């Protein structure tokens, strides 16, 4: 079977890979690039655990073919922190106990970063609707929302 050769940027690094034509970007990230931070919870775009940014746009990597990444810039959970300096969304998730099992957390953090990049001061309703595609079965979302608002405030430069 012929594999497709793809060149793209992943977390700022130029990356090449070969993928089967039907292989999803999520499978490429996890199985071929060793980036297992993106999770598969459903494989059908219903849980958001595989959320990544493609050219800055939030998508489910399970709903994208690896071949489609050609020439694109992909950011995964592994690319959100700057070295050992956590992104405010990451540190506020920790501070607010916004994770229990942690499986949905990478997708939620990527989705929250995308939210706050687009809308620095979301209302609770806006944040809840934006994140509706990220299922969390542990927390009831309460502490996640608290972390989102705290991260937004921190990114706006307001005292937490």
């Amino acid at each position, binding site marked *: 079977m012929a594999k497709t050769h793809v060149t793209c940027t992943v977390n700022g690094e130029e990356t090449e890979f070969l993928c089967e034509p039907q292989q999803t970007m999520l*499978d490429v990230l996890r199985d071929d690039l060793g980036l297992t931070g993106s999770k*598969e*919870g459903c494989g059908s775009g219903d*849980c958001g655990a595989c959320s990544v940014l493609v050219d800055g746009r939030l998508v489910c990597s399970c709903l994208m073919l690896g071949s489609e990444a050609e020439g694109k810039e992909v950011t*995964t959970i592994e690319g959100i*922190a700057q070295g050992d300096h956590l992104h405010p969304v990451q540190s506020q998730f920790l501070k607010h*106990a916004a994770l229990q099992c942690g499986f949905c957390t990478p997708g939620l953090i990527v989705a929250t970063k995308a939210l706050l990049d687009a809308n620095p001061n979301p209302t609770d309703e806006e944040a809840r609707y934006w994140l509706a595609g990220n299922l969390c*079965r542990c*927390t009831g979302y*309460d502490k996640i929302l608290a972390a989102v608002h705290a991260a937004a405030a921190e990114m706006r430069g307001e005292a937490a």
Partner: protein
Amino acid sequence: MNDISMKDALKVVGTRPVRPDGVDKVVGRAQFGGDAAMPGQIFGATVRSPHAHARIKRIDTSKAEAMKGVKAVVTAADFPDIASEEAFVGEGPMNFRDLSRNLMARDKVLYDGHVVAAVAATSNSIARAAAEAVEVEYEVLPHVIDEMEAMADGAPLLHDDIFTGGVEPKPTKPSNVAKRMEFVKGDLDAGFAAADKIVERTYKTAPVHQAYIEPHACVASYNADGQCLVICSSQGQFMVRAYCAKLLGIDISDMRVIPAEIGGGFGGKTLVYLEPLALALSKKSGRPVRMVMDRVDVFRGTGPTSGGTIKVKIGAKNDGTITAADAEIILQAGAYPGSPMGPACMTCFAMYDVENARTVGFDVVSNRPKVAAYRAPGAPISTFATESAMDELAREIGMDPIEFRLKNAAKDGTKALYGPTFQNIGYVETLEAVKTHPNLQAKLGPNQGRGVASGFWFNIGGESSASLAVNEDGTLVLVSGSPDIGGSRASMAMMAAEILGIDVQRIRPIVGDTASVGFTFLTGGSRVTFATGMAVCESANEVVKQLRGRAAKIWEIDEEAVEWRDGAAYPAGDNAGKFEPLTLADIAAKAARTGGPITAKGAVNAQGAGPGFGTHVVDVEVDPETGHVKILRYTASQDVGRAIHPAYVEGQIQGGAVQGIGWALNEEYIYDKDGRLDNGSFLDYRVPVASDLPQIDTVLVEVPNPRHPFGAKGVGEVPIVPPMAAIANAIYDATGVRMTSLPMSPPKLLAAMDAAGK
């Protein structure tokens, strides 16, 4: 032992530090079951039955085996035929023979999604193609999905060797009813005769799945010398070890299980599905095998909790005194016996001091996946019924639902229907706490209603192990045997830090594998903070004792003359002030010269887990034209004993309440006429999303448990018990329609409103 009344003296317990495993989880570095890898691993896939009930006439694996890249195919023929034997390994009843046949069908398939074969190949895509190439010839048999239909005469029989247990005389004909059980006290007839008002109704609940976001996953290797290694996410590495050893005929000493991070369980990961298959494939192929379920496999093939039919009758005097309470609880077990009917029977009246009461349970098999534990197994089902009836009765009498519950509330000294006499319980406190909550002062608008319900869960103790080692620099490593499903590493380290008098950051807590820590019963029953916490406290107290001994040696005084406080040894009594205090680091640095490494283990079979009670109040708004229910406000109060890490205690309550909201409103298993699951995806199995919910307000009531060093009680399960009835009661308040069937989805609610002319 610490004085639990001295809450103000606590420095670590009750604070909210960042969890020690947190950074890995926010940067994507934490290793969950599906992230683990072994050198040379290949990939497994399963072949699942498309039929609800069928005889397996023939399995032809030759085409699959001939495919390039396929390394092994296994069927039931590759597993020992296990004899019937009760297992006490997981949560709830289980039989090794049933479990063996559940993970690999033998002779018959009993539900859509039942595994009949598994393959391993050099890539996932080859494995999936090979699974499709396995040919299975079935003789399709009549099937039965509903528990009441399964109980009826002439229903298709799943097993010809099940004779209803618990009835006299012993039946001679096989049945789908595996067992009957009964709890009774007092005189029911007299109780109902004394009642002024009686409510009697039948309720129905749908099976719901735990719906953890992480599908089951493992990687396993079976070596040529018979030694096996499994890395997987589960609620108990020792549970996985025990089941795999038994089902494959391996010595326990040859089985090592390393717990991966677990992406949610809620009871659903208290048994094995993939691990024995991966081991069998590994044995046959000579390669480590990785297996990961996809979501549809999780829904079709793993255990949801039971659906059921519950008949309730409760009588009360006009002054609000309950005179008698009776419930018959019929639960689906799935394809093999073992529904949570026991706890369902024991919990549903446990909130009340009732003189005359009875609960009767029936465990019924049908062509559904075998049920697994789900958060307070059984209690939410029976309590939906009894707490709905309680609401109706309160209205009949004309009493406020909270006052009605207060009037009958179980207190210290109340003898429960299931036997024990309660001590140190905080049910009344949970009711009092919601009464004054601001949410209950909010005014309700049109189409809005408020509902109240309470819930009970036993909480359990049991066997746990921990070990604590002092490092050369005075930091510590804490190893426990409990998989951390919601932040328990943090609470374990906090309890040890409290005893040691040090900053919690100086303790690195980890979850040990089966070869590095003593036996620990699985993470379930809300037992970890209580039981494993006790093992941790035991190890910490022992380390303190050793530290005092080392200081005594350095100072050449008696150990009794050394006091430990704030992380340092101080000379006490006659010696007070004679020596400079020695910190943990000072003593650690001198460990080699004072007797070697300072380590201690804690090993307990913890008893006296304090039972938990909770009361939830919910406000809803019903769209009268569509039947859509919006949750406006939610208040959950619970007796938690003592909150070790309050943020994670609140998180348990919020998460449990929201799972209950999903159970109440939308979650269900839908089967088509052929008995095939029709909604095995997160698209159509509708768990609550962020925009469905308001803030979930929690009230932590602390009535300490004297059996725990810091007063902790289990907290994880109680919060899923009250929501369904609370919401049904709120819907009644809003619409005047009494919903008796879950889920209260828009089509059902609208149909009920139309039927009632509302």
